[in-house]
């Protein structure tokens, strides 16, 4: 049986960051990297841009073969893991071959979830998680005039915007009352919705898809409101779930995702997990939850790699923080941390978040200039930041949150000048 000292399943951000961390300390130990794709490594985040043509599918790869060779990595494409035997320290691959490992990293990412809709499984529809999905969608768009995007998460919204930009008539259906519910509050979402609406994108919020059927070459979608929408194409972007089906027989603890500790160790000896596949401790409390953001995947991958190779510089995972940047129609937004908890009630998702009554917020909301800024504090520490079209550095805000910097006397100054004060704080930290 072929063997690898380090076996990494999944070649997106988590897998690659782990690989780099391992090679920083151990340039000799054998590494095998496996991806389900037939292509070189890429990021799922790039896919909406591939669909729109903003990104050249030939140039999106995070590493080329030369880099793999340089790192002395055995890179297996088009392979998935079917079972993991944690006792024997081996995995079985879809090719039927088995591979033994000393240390295993599971970074198998996530899979789109399809909502229970009558007819959906029989009708042609699109999802967007792999490069293959993106290329199919891109091809399908040729000569298509209308598209229905189900789900107003980041993938759905990016896809909708990019489809609109190439002249497709787009309609969005979202079950919750506003778009991007994971990242923005109602006020924030309202600015985004306005921008979409201004570009002629129709939105059906608080609606679910009930049925899909074919009619005169087009797809006819019926919503729970009874309304019907005819569309040339349907993209389902109602979320993802960790890809863990192959672990059903394995002796590794899973919940919604693979459960890991603050070093990305799973319950099984010699097995780590990182990225969208894991359920890891949160930042604001220790409860393990799905996070599924790109920066978190990188961080988790790096920690896993460092732990696998025994890097003494490792600092344990501080916990997942919900965050993302969002660029839409020339506007710039981001959201970090606890941005919705201070005014709960306007949406229905607060149960997914930490409930903390002692939060206070500072808001600047000016719909006329399409600007919104919200800073959320807890005990003089920043715990959340949201910005639409204001001058804030997302990375600086993230770091102020992550380091739990006690602003004390600087809080008033921070509220008045968050950008400058944040930059000064970071200069002092750096120094």
């Amino acid at each position, binding site marked *: 049986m072929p063997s690898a000292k380090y076996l990494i399943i999944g070649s997106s*951000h988590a897998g690659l*960051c782990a690989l*780099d961390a391992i090679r920083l300390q151990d340039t000799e130990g054998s590494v095998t990297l496996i991806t389900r794709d037939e292509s070189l490594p*890429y*990021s*799922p*985040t*790039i896919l909406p*841009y591939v669909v729109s043509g*903003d*990104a050249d599918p030939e*140039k*999106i*790869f*995070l590493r080329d073969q030369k880099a793999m060779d340089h790192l002395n990595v055995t890179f297996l494409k088009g392979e998935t893991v079917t079972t993991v035997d944690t006792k024997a320290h081996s995995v079985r691959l879809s090719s039927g071959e088995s591979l033994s490992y000393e240390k295993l990293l599971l970074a198998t990412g996530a899979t789109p979830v399809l909502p229970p809709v009558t007819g959906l499984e029989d009708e042609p529809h699109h999802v967007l998680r792999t490069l293959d999905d993106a290329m199919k969608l891109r091809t399908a768009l040729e000569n298509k005039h209308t598209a229905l995007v189900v789900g107003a998460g980041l993938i759905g919204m990016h896809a909708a915007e990019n489809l609109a930009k190439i002249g497709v008539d787009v309609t969005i259906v979202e079950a919750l009352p506003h778009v991007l519910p994971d990242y923005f509050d109602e006020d924030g979402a309202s600015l985004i919705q306005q921008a979409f609406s201004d570009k002629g994108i129709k939105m059906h919020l608080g609606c679910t898809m009930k049925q899909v059927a074919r009619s005169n070459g087009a797809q006819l979608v019926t919503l729970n409101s009874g309304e019907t929408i005819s569309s040339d194409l349907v993209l389902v972007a109602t979320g993802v779930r960790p890809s863990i089906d192959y672990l059903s027989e394995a002796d590794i603890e899973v919940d919604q995702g693979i459960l890991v500790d603050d070093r990305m160790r799973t319950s099984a000896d010699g097995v780590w997990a990182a990225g969208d596949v894991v359920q890891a401790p949160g930042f604001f409390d220790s409860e393990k939850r799905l996070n599924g953001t*790109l*920066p978190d995947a*990188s961080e988790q991958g*790096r920690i896993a790699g460092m732990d696998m190779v025994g890097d003494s510089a490792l600092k344990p995972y501080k916990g997942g923080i919900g*965050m*993302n*940047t*969002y*660029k839409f129609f*020339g506007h*710039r937004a*981001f959201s*970090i941390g606890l941005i919705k908890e201070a005014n709960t009630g306007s949406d229905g998702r607060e149960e997914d978040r930490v409930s903390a009554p002692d939060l206070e917020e500072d808001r600047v909301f000016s719909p006329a200039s399409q600007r919104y800024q919200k800073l959320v504090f807890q005990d003089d520490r920043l715990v959340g930041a949201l910005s639409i079209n204001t001058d804030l*550095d*997302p*990375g*600086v805000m*993230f*770091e102020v949150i992550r380091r739990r910097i006690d602003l004390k*006397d*600087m809080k008033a*100054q921070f509220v008045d000048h968050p*950008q*400058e*004060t*944040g*930059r*000064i*704080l*970071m*200069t*002092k*930290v*750096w*120094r």
Partner: protein
Amino acid sequence: MGKGYPTIAFYPEKCNGCNDCVEACAQIKTETSEPVHSRISVAKDPDDEFYGLSLCRQCGDPRCVMDCPARALTKNEDTGVVHWDETKCVNCQICTLACPYAGITYNRITDQVMKCDLCNGDPACVKACAPMALEYKIGAEIYNTWGDLEDLFVPGVGACLGCNSELIMRHTLRRIGPNTVVATPPGCIPGVGSVGVNGITSTKTPVFHPLLTNTASMLAGVKRYYNRIGRDVTMLALAGDGGAADVGFQSLSGAAERGEQMIFVCVDNEGYMNTGVQRSSTTPYGAWTTTTPVGEALQGKTRDAKPLPLLMVLHSCEYVATAALPFMEDFYMKLDKAIEASKRGMAFIHIFSPCPTGWRFDPSQLIEVARKGVETNMVPLWEYENDLGRINITHVVNEPLPVVTYLKSIGKYRHLSDEQLVYIQRKTDERFELLKKFTKESKLEGLSDAA
């Protein structure tokens, strides 16, 4: 081994918020003076006059590169610059979330991110910074140039916590290389373990204990014989101030006068630290030692330190320099010159070596204490090249700190009275003025001025 890269260093205490850097950056990148286009920006803290810098640090392990989904950001292996490829960027802004220093920022005019590219190694902002709050540091070149060379000193040596002797040993030996005979007379260097204990040595070159008194003479003998048989071997002495300025001075002076070919490094910790902190001739005025105690009648040493490096200049050594480890590029530059000079005659390097144990300060402050010594002009960094015939100050301190900022950071000066502080400031100024007189173009002019 990896690679080190140049960076732009920022000294907030020197910044005056003039924003010339911002304008210079905008000019060179867009030919406008619009601050919005600048890759560098300075934020002022209204309360404590502190300036915060936003600028790409060109991180060694850049989060922005790790997090970019489009591979539009890469770290250039040759230059170390984190490179942004506009053609690949999809404007997702995730990089701005990855950077805690606002080193890559959103430009609302161009609707794109932007970041510093170090101007191809000649950063405009640094050139524009009059108060020299920005400095283009190429110290990492030391690592690139010499990092792969073998460390000739074994790990696990017995130095006190925070001692710079180990750093000196490793850096010096690594640079000079194995074709070297190393003399370490009694003192802290062999105390650290240079020659070893009970039949086991700690150094991968030939190394020996000369007497405290005869280091330069023994090395001279070794060198002369190798010259006689046509072998080119470098001689290196690592001696303390006792072995150089006091009981070792006769042989050092004799060897310098004869032009013996060697690199003689004086590791000056201003006293006999290895024997338990007694005074030496380089112990400064006012310093406490166990033989210049503080009591009713006496408050530390009553005489000034012997200016050994200047004495060596007057011996017409091929090369004389002072050095301090916070200024590593300066030290390496001087090592380079010393190696060359030692092929012709005596090269003498005097390393200012604060001693946490003997001077009574926190070991973590070693480099800071040494830096303050330099920045108060108590220990000016300079070099003398015999063929040029004059002293060149290699690290110019534009606005020297008052000596009290240095003295107050060290326990051995804790007792100093106001009068003593005034005296030390005056002597420091006088000595620096004297030193400057040796910096004239002409050797004769410099000497006559000094006289």
